[in-house]
Structure formats: C-alpha cells, structure tokens
C-alpha cells in the first residue's frame, strides 16, 4: 500500500512514442480517480483541406498524416476512392499493393519492437543506449527494418511518403528482375525476423489482461492487411460478429468525453482495441505455417490479451510479412498496365486497411467531376485511446495495491510504489500499444491540467 493520500502524476512529454502526448494520472490512496492520455499534437485539419481536392489527390495528401505509416493512409484512401467510383482493381495490382504494405509492416513493426519497445524490457533509455550492451541485437533490428524499407524504396520510390502509389494502382510496376535482389534480402531478413521472435520471447512480461472488444479486418484464407471485413471479437471471446464497411461510422462512434478533450471512438459505447493483439486474436489461424510455428514456439498458442506481450505478437507479424512478401515476389507477373483508370463519378466510398497500429478507415464523398466534398479519417490511435487509458488505470491500480508481479521494476515488487516507478510503468503501458499520436487528424488541442505534485 502506498503511504500517501491523493496525488497527481504528470508526465509532460512522453518519449519513444510517435508524435506528442502527455499522461495525467490522478491517484487517491490505491484508487486511480482519473487516467488520461493527453494528445497535445497540434491539429492539422486534413479532413478540412481535403475538401475541394481532386479524387486523385488523397493518396499523396493523406500520406502526410503520418510519416511512420504513410502506405496505410495511401491504400485506405485508394480503397475508398475506388469504392466511390465503383472500380475493381485486378489481382496483380492488389498483390503489388500487398507487397508494398508488407514493407511498411516490416519497417514499422520493427521500429516499434527495437527502437521504442524493447528498451523497456531491458532497462534502457532507447535503442542507442541499448546498443552499448546489446549491439548485435540492435544491429539485427536495424537490418530487419532496412529490409522493410528496401521494399518501400523499390516499389514506392522512397520509404517515407512513397510517390508511386496512385488511385487505380501504381504509376510504374516493377519487372520480375528488379524484385529478385529484394527476394535475396528478404530471405536473410527471415532469419532476423525469427531471431526477433526468439529474442522477445525471452523477456520478462508483467501480468496484465485487457478486457476489451477487439476489432480487426478479416478475410478468408489469409491474414488481413490491405483489405477485409471489419470483425469484432467480444470481450468474452466467444462471439465474433462482422459489419459492413459502409456501416463503419455507425458502429465505431467517435465522441467527446467529459474528462478529456480528445475524441474517443467506441464500438457503440463499448471500449475496443485495434492493432496487433486484435488482429492476432481474430486472424491467427490464417497465418502462414512459418509464422504460426514461430507464434507457438514463443508461447502464443491462443489469443493474447496481455498488452505487454504485444511485442511478441508484432514480432510474429513481422515473420508473416516477410514470408508474405516472399510469396508475392515468387508469384509475381507484371500487370499488363500498372493501373486501371478510375473515372470520377458522384458517390460515397469507404476504405479500410490494417495499419501496423490497427484498423484505419477512410470515407470520401465525391462530386460528379471527382471533387472531394467531404472526407472522414478514423485513425487507430483514436480508437485505441480509450483502451489505453483503461489499461493505465488498471495497471496503476494493480501496482498501487502492491499486486504487481515481477518485471515492472521499481519498488512495485516490494508492495510500495513510488511516483517514479509508477510513472515508468504507465509509460510502458502506453508504449505497449504504440500509439501513433501524429495521426492527429482530429485530435483536439488540450489544456494540460498542471496540478502541482504534492
């Protein structure tokens, strides 16, 4: 038990997350009266300035929402606009898109694993610091990340804000010969990806459980990345339901909550989580054999609801993405044309893909000449924010009550938890979910309550 009464913990600038956020925790005895993940990323108004642009422009423009997952934005935008214009993209182009997306998964998930998340388990400030004691591990991570970037650079032109994606497909499709060096690099990357799962499986994981509904896309026969139907696995894990993408904003409701000025999305009032844990719980049977075997060897036999273990699930997803990229390259036949024409028409289109951090939904309304008249973007972090806050509350209360188990560090193991240890634990709880705060398409600017520390 803590010896102190009411107090307020405030971390002004979260580190090792993407974008800018702060954490605010109010504690009374062993109870957490308020847990707030505050996003103070300035609003950038994407939904507003997309209005009036041509229907060909959202892929390049929305890429700028996030430098960490631009492909997710590009491909959700393409899917929504092609839906509005009633155009189906042929399989060879869909496969190339999947290959590009695998590149982003490998790069972005590896960035999270090695540079943002692993240092927490090894008591280090970051990967640069980690390299002093675990140089070979950090080098392996950088090599693996580089393999993901190599896909993005070849297929997209560059790793951040690729230039080769367009509505209807690509500006230019690669030749078979151009993809061969990539296949060689990816075969080496598979060794690094498997080693990553093995490495992370050796970490010490605090006990935690997230009792939320899980939301991910799913499709028959393969792990959903670039397409699929929204699928919900309820908290009890015994019921799966799906809904049509056209109903997305009826099912995933964004609203303001009294204690926070950031928008929270819920599944019609039920707290939900999207991202690696949700995808794995819903789609793990569709993993390729090598990824499934890696998961089993890492102790992930069923669904995983411990957010601290998300690093393992991400590592398994990297194995899958490397394997899937190799499959696409092996089967690749260049399309007759790199894109199909997408003639504009008046209509509304919906698109969703699985960004590394979770389901990313776009909706556009187009005028007859293709001018965008309305745009709606629902990023994963807006959806996960409620679950992250609930995690913070539960994990902090567990630590305050002295029930924290091994691995949380600080004084928590001895039954008392000081502010520094509690802060560290809460930061870890946030980094478990890799909140990509840059996707501030409609996060509100915040007034930070700077209650003095007692």
């Amino acid at each position: 038990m803590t010896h102190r009464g009411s107090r307020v913990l405030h971390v002004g600038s979260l580190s090792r997350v993407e974008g800018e956020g702060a954490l605010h925790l109010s504690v009374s005895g062993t109870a957490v009266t308020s847990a707030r993940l505050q996003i103070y990323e300035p609003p950038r108004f994407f939904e507003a300035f997309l209005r009036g642009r041509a229907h060909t422009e959202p892929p390049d423009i929305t890429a700028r929402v996030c430098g960490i997952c631009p492909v997710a934005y590009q491909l959700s935008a393409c899917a929504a606009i092609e839906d509005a214009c009633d155009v189906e993209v042929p399989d060879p182009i869909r496969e190339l898109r999947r290959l590009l997306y695998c590149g982003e998964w490998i790069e972005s998930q590896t960035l999270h694993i090695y540079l943002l998340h692993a240092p927490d388990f090894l008591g280090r400030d970051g990967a640069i610091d980690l390299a002093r004691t675990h140089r070979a591990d950090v080098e392996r991570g950088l090599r693996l990340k580089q393999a993901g970037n190599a896909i993005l650079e070849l297929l997209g032109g560059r790793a951040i804000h690729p230039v080769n994606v367009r509505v209807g497909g690509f500006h230019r499709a690669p030749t078979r010969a151009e993809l061969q060096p990539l296949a060689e690099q990816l075969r080496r990357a598979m060794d690094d990806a498997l080693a990553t799962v093995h490495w992370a499986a050796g970490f010490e994981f605090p006990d935690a459980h997230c009792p939320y509904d899980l939301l991910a896309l799913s499709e028959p026969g393969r792990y959903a990345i670039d397409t699929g139907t929204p699928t919900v696995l309820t908290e009890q894990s015994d019921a799966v339901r799906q809904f049509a993408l056209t109903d997305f904003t009826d099912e995933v409701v964004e609203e303001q909550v009294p204690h926070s000025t950031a928008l929270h999305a819920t599944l019609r009032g039920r707290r939900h989580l999207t991202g690696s844990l949700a995808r794995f719980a819903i789609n793990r049977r569709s993993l390729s054999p090598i990824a499934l075997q890696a998961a089993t060897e890492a102790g992930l036999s069923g669904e995983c609801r411990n957010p601290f273990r998300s690093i393992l699930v991400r590592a398994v997803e990297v194995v899958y993405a490397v394997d899937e990229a190799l499959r696409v390259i092996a089967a690749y036949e260049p399309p007759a044309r790199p894109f199909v024409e997408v003639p504009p028409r008046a209509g509304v289109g919906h698109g969703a893909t699985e960004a590394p951090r979770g389901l990313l939904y776009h909706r556009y309304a187009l005028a007859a000449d293709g001018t965008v008249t309305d745009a709606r973007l629902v990023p994963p972090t807006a959806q996960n924010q409620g679950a992250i806050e609930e995690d913070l509350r539960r994990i902090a209360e567990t630590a305050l009550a002295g029930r924290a188990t091994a691995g949380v560090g600080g004084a928590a193991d001895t039954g008392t938890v000081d502010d520094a240890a509690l802060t560290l634990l809460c930061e870890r709880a946030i980094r478990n979910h890799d909140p990509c705060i840059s996707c501030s398409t409609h996060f509100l600017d915040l007034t930070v309550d700077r209650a003095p520390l007692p």
Partner: protein
Amino acid sequence: MDRTERRDHAERAAPTLAVFKLASCDGCQLTLLDCEDELLALTGTVRVAHFLEASSAVRPGPYDLALVEGSITTPADAERIRAIRASARHLVTIGACATAGGIQALRDFADVDEFRRTVYARPDYIETLATSTPVSAHVDVDFELRGCPIDRRQLLEVLTAFLAGRKPDVPNHSVCFACKRRGTVCVTVARGTPCLGPVTHAGCGAICPAYGRGCYGCFGPAGTVNLSALIPVLHRDGLDDRDTERLLRTFNAAAFAPYDKEVRP
C-alpha cells in the same frame, strides 16, 4: 583511465544533438532512424541529448546542434521555438513543415474557423493560429533542409557538415538537373506529363519522373523559379487554372505562393 572512464570522457566531449518536433507527421525525424547503416556510427560521434522519439533520456541544453521538425501552428509552439533557439548553438530546420509551413499551411489560404468547424464537434476547444509558419518566421535559423520528407543522404551531409564546422553541400538547383544526372527521359517533353521539376528544389533524387509521373513539388521552390514560363506549359499539358493552383498549393503551399502571385496578381 580505464575503458569505461575513457568512454564517459569521450561522451562528455562529443557534440550534443537534440531533435525537436512541432506540427508535423514525424517523417523527417524518422529519416534519422532510417539511416540504418549509419545510425550507430553517428551516435558514436555525437551525444544524443534530446530526441523523444528515440530515447527516454533527456538532458538539458545547451545543445551544439538542434534539428527542428514541424511548423508553428499554436501560440504555445511560438513560445517553445524561442526556448529551443536559446538552447541551441546551431539550429537546423528539417522538412517542408519547418522550412515552409508544410501542408498545414493550406489554412493560410482559407478560413481557419471554417476548418475548425469542419473537423471538430467543439471548435471552441481548439486553440490554433490562423497560419502555419516556418521556424524562420520566428527565430534565426542556421540552415534549412527542404523536403516532404527530407532526403536521408542530404540529412547525413548536413549532420556531417555541422560536425566538421563547414557549410553543407546541398545544391540549390532544380529537379530537372537531377533528372538529367539520373538519365531519366523528360516526362514533359516525351509524354506531355505536367511536371513541377523545373521550379522545384532538387534533393529527392528526382524520384517521381523515374517512376513515370510528374514532380509534385515536395521539396519546394528551387533557387530560380520562373513560374510565368512554366504555367503555359502546364496548361498546354492539360491542367486548367484550378488544377495548376492545387498542384502548387500542396506540401509547400506557402513557399510557392509568392511566385504564383507574381504570375497571377
């Protein structure tokens, strides 16, 4: 000195690097982490003293070199950039947001209150400036590195140059020069594709024409911009006035605007 002492001593003597972020997508600071082959060598040369995306260890200034990503869009950030400037011996801005206001500078041409109402249910909660301005509009800047996003090779050149105390070798010529050097056939001449290459700052490696599309100006204006010569070519190749305006007003809207005004008063 034993090995640890020697290392500690070397670290104290190493120049300090800080990375800060304002309104932006994180992509330009990610470029530093995307230097996979050079990252560990670089961090053996400089001491990373403040880089929230990469490390929880935050050391106070003064810093020898501060990289700043993002534009000024809130009153708080306008204050913050002064503090950053005061803490930095050299301040380098990285990316289109920090050097030209970025894509969020589209608000400069619109009614920001309308933007607020479009995006937010409670627009009164939003504290934002009516403009998105580059860092140089607020404080002195030692060097501006262009691009949306910046180029990894140029970033390494800038870092190396500042560490060596010399001027960065980042040429001011247009994308057309880079296309010629790359051996890319001109998309405008060969296929009539509208392209901003003649007026756009080089640095990306002329990627778009190499992938069969026209340059869309993500590195902002080149040293010499002759829009009055280019606009008739864009019209010839099928863009109307509205298309041309949108092409110029995207990732470096505020930087191209003065030139566009010369052509269309």
